């Protein structure tokens, strides 16, 4: 096993498009590092540069102590699992898994031993003679993993390996992949655009946007302390509610005005973030995660509420997702739109028109006992202690 180090790595294509800029990243030995971000953020490019499938335009990538910029993929001791598995259709499963070893001229008896061992672990021992087309999607995925594992490489590279599986299988395989990685203690770089996968699987997660690293942290940090608007809206499902608010001072306390309503911030919040003082009289982005917007009764004494009209109420069985329309302006900055566009381009127009009309639709998580009806006016409890604040111009989070 080995560490992987990116030092100011950049990638520029022949026609001038830049895919990655000044990437500094260190993957520890044995760590499961996830690269996550919307389409086009450069995560796959970064992965391919480690593999040697893309040339490195700027900077250096080291595997262990060795600079690998000029090394062929075959000489880097890396193994890769592709999104569409890339199994050799004309070879049996056995030959598929054995291929890498064969190319490295490992002794036949050794190949046989290792292939059968891996096949046993992955539950593929019954299908070694079959062809890829005879296998199901999940089985093919395991063959792809087997092909990588059997080579016992320094680094595992995975390019969205689960995205072609159906939802239930994907959940199952997530656990499988994590388990295998832990057992092997293998340094792994995993690319995905699904932030749920990122959060559940990674030891640390690196969020990329337009070729630039936004934040790298363990999942909890990423969730609780996003460094900018982009990370804040990208991480978390359902997404963080972002509303424009004007900060005012009233008495000794800070108050956030959302449209016609006012939320008084707690003294601790003001104390923890002295920088907020500089934004008095200005607009900022106020972020509230759905779980911090609760049903009316849940408010603790002193906690403010927001009034609005229920538009949709979705029952998830374990809880209820309630969409509430509030007369305030949602945040429609570039970062937010990019995240929305990555989900569904049609929603961008909706969000922009909402902003123009000053209607913010926030998602709240209610207990199932409360059943609001569409059209009903409701007062949502706000756990304002957990609010996030972002500068509207720079997108940076306001923490200190």
């Amino acid at each position, binding site marked *: 096993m*080995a560490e992987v180090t990116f030092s100011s790595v950049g990638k520029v294509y022949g026609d001038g498009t830049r895919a990655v800029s000044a990437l500094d990243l260190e993957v520890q030995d044995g760590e499961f590092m996830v690269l996550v971000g919307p389409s086009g953020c450069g995560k796959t490019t970064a992965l391919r540069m480690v593999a040697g499938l893309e040339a490195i335009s700027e900077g250096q990538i080291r595997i262990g*102590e060795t600079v*690998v910029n000029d090394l062929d993929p075959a*000489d880097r001791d890396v193994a890769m699992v592709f999104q569409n598995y890339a199994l050799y259709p004309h070879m049996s499963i056995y030959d598929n898994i054995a291929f890498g070893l064969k190319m*490295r001229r490992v002794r036949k008896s050794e190949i046989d031993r290792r292939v059968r061992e891996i096949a046993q672990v992955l539950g593929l021992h019954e299908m070694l003679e079959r062809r890829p087309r005879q296998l199901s999607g999940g089985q093919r995925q395991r063959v792809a993993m087997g092909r990588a594992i059997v080579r016992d490489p*320094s680094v595992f590279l995975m390019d969205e390996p689960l995205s072609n599986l159906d939802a239930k299988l994907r959940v199952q395989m997530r656990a499988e992949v994590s388990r295998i990685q832990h057992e092997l203690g293998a340094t792994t770089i995993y690319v995905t655009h699904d932030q749920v996968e990122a959060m559940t699987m990674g030891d640390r997660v690196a969020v990329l946007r337009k070729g630039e690293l936004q934040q790298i942290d363990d999942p909890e940090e990423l969730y609780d302390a996003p460094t900018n608007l982009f990370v804040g809206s990208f991480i978390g499902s359902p997404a963080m509610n972002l509303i424009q608010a004007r900060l005012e001072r009233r008495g000794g306390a800070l108050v956030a005005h959302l449209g016609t309503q006012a939320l008084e911030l707690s003294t601790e919040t003001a104390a923890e973030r002295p920088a907020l003082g500089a934004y008095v009289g200005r607009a900022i982005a106020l972020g509230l995660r759905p779980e911090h917007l609760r049903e009316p009764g849940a408010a603790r004494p002193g906690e403010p509420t927001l009034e609005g009209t229920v538009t949709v109420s979705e029952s998830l069985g374990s809880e209820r997702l309630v969409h509430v329309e509030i007369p305030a302006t949602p945040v429609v900055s570039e970062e937010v739109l990019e995240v929305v566009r990555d989900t569904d381009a049609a929603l961008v127009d909706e969000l922009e028109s909402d902003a123009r009309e000053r209607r913010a639709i926030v998602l709240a998580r209610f207990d199932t006992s409360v059943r609001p009806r569409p059209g009903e006016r409701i007062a949502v409890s706000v756990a304002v202690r957990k609010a996030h604040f972002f500068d509207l111009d720079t997108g940076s989070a306001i923490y200190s």
Partner: protein
Amino acid sequence: MTTRQAVIGTPRRRRRLPKLGRAEPLVWIAPALVLVAFVFGYAMVELFRTSFERSGDWASLENFRLTLDDPTFRTALVHNARLLLAVPVLVVLAMLISILLFEAIRGWRFHRAAIFLPYVLPIPVVAVIFGQILQLNGLLNRGLQSLGLGALAVDWLGQPEWALWTMTGVIIWKELGFGAILFLARLLSLPVETFEAARIDGARFFRLHRYITVPQLAGVIAFYVVIEAITMVSWVFNYVYVMTNGQGGPGNATMVTELYVYQTAFQYQAPELAAAAAVILFALTFVLIVFFFRIQRRTGLGVHE
């Protein structure tokens, strides 16, 4: 950790070939390029050079002037032009047959196999057989006579007025299959819903095919026209040679440019004049080749996906 480091970066044992880097594709292509450069490149350069020479001396455009003044050459060109008249006939017939095959009339696979057969037969074989059939007392005339149509029995290959038309007929007979299959393949690759929708909308045979089928064939029709035009101009040597014993007869009734080049070079032993004639022929074909190239690019029928 140290063993890992030893692995990364060391090339595998027994690397036989040196690293080729950016020149690698050229290594793969090289053998083909060499052969093509020789067969086409060397030949054409030599051809041009020869066409400007006379017994080793520079003759500038002398050979071209002589060739263009030669009535036989001009006749040959005219005949190639007349052969071009076959192209629209081919297109129409091929369309008709491919449409009928497309409609999957009973037994269409058999018909398809039969209609394509002439295209794979060797031209010399075809030419000999038709030579027999089309003789003065050959099968065609005897058949006509037995049907009481003796008046129509002519010397198909022997009479100057008929010879070229007869030749055209044979060429059409052979080339038709290619067009029919080509169009059929294209039709089969089209989404079937278009036709179903049109049928429901009330289009029957003639209108259906006129408004729906034929327009969708535009791409392959253009392709076929260019291919067959090139054929008529410079790929008919075999027919003429075999059916007229290399003479282009009767008289010069079936003389074509290719035959002219062949005769000038090998019968009259005048390689320079033959080269000039070949250059002219190539120039004519070149125009068509450019068309071919353009059509490839425009209709996306090329290697560029």
